[in-house]
């Protein structure tokens, strides 16, 4: 599902990740922890092919980083749902339009979209807020909207990059619970966080990333 083979990536100004080897099986819920600047986001970006490794191979759902075309990258991303710390919701569209966006990208028929959006919003507890703009929602609600946008296309993998970074403890806990609920449907989830207290004791594998080097905790 997600496989890293001797992957290194360096930015111009310093190291990103160094000689990573990692494998996450289908349906696994994995945590990735590490302090700020340790390379968590770099690792995530390598998974959704926003970055391509300098050395080594990243293999995601059968797509190999060394055999990618621009079209393949788009295709590979359609099976990945992403949740970001800064939400990346479009401020000029309401909640319905934001959540429906992946379905338009995938070419869903207009008539099938409202039902699916309603379902996704209900799952994250935002039903009834379809017409709200992102700016009218709290941080926790925006993050849940971001999650709804990620799950609406029923992805095989969900990547959550510091999704609780801007949330209070209660909202953070609720979000992890939500991710666990989604995981129960068989979705592979990789969540990055620097908050160890939030993820410990959940019975999931935890990878620790420090200075670009990965180890199992």
């Amino acid at each position: 599902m997600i496989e890293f083979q001797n992957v290194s990536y360096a930015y111009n100004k310093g190291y990103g990740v160094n000689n990573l080897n990692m494998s996450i099986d289908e349906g696994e819920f994995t945590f990735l922890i590490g302090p700020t600047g340790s390379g968590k986001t770099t690792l995530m970006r390598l998974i959704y092919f926003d970055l391509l490794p300098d050395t080594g191979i990243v293999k995601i759902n059968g797509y190999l980083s060394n055999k990618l075309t621009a079209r393949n990258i788009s295709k590979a991303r359609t099976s990945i749902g992403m949740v970001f710390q800064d939400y990346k919701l479009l401020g000029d569209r309401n909640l319905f339009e934001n959540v429906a966006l992946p379905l338009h990208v995938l070419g869903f028929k207009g008539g099938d979209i409202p039902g699916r959006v309603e379902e996704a919003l209900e799952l994250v507890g935002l039903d009834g807020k379809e017409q709200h703009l992102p700016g009218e929602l709290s941080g926790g609600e925006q993050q849940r909207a971001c999650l709804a946008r990620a799950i609406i296309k029923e992805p095989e993998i969900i990547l959550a990059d510091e999704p609780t970074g801007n949330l209070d403890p209660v909202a953070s806990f609720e979000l992890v619970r939500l991710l666990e609920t989604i995981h129960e449907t068989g979705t592979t989830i990789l969540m990055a966080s620097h908050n160890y207290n939030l993820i410990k004791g959940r019975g999931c594998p935890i990878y620790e990333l420090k200075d670009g080097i990965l180890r199992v905790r």
Partner: protein
Amino acid sequence: MDKFLYLLTEGVKNTWRHKMTTFTAIFSLFIALYIVGLLATAGNNTYKVLHYLRSKYKIEVFFKQDVSNEEAVGLIHRIKKIKGVRTATIIEKEDAMRIFKDQFGENITDILGYNPLPVSAVVNVDRTRKDPLRVEPIIKEIRTMDRVEEIRYQGNLINKIEMNYKRISDRFPYFSGIIILIAVLIIYNTIKLSVYSRRDLIQSLQLIGATRLFVKLPFIIEGIFIGLISVILVFPALIGTVKGLNYMVSNFTSLSIKLTFDTSVWIWLFTLVVVITLIGSYRAASSFLK
């Protein structure tokens, strides 16, 4: 089909979502197109104005006192053959007397007892040529006729008009080239700025797996839509300007020139704006795509 319809409506909706950006873009494009349109209209009408002014050029040829009306007809026939002469009309002695009476209210034969006014001719020059007209060669040739007493013409004025026409027509292509280039740059950069203000949308679309075409198409549609609104607004503005100028010319001057607006200018502007907005929005969206 659903995807294409979505992208089409997205392109149009974006203009409404970003009203301020859209308004600024339409305004900038309108100004640029209006200036180019005015320039093209001026270019179209320059020759018309010159044609009108040339119709006012008049060379008066006075024959010697003893030249009879019949002999003058022969001389006029020779004048007509000179290169650059359009018409030559005889003013017989009797006609000259009538003109004198019309202008001064007196019958000259009653005062002097005879008609001293000579037979003359009014020569009009060819007004259709595109290159500057020179009357001196015509005058020189008429002077070679020994039965001609005097020639009167507005030499300085004609030369001034023709020289200015030459100056304008020589520089016009360069000047309009610069203006069009500036307009193209304004349109291109306006579209680019409009796309730049929404680079987060491009990034988000890419992250959820949108293809490059899916990302670009709404921007292209939006760009063309903005361009079309601008060019549609420019059309009445240019017609209004031409009508306003015609109103001022006919009411506040003695000129009887009627400026026209050639619809091919609008078609030309239409094509220009579609091509530039298409290329501009395509390139701008591409530059923010990874």
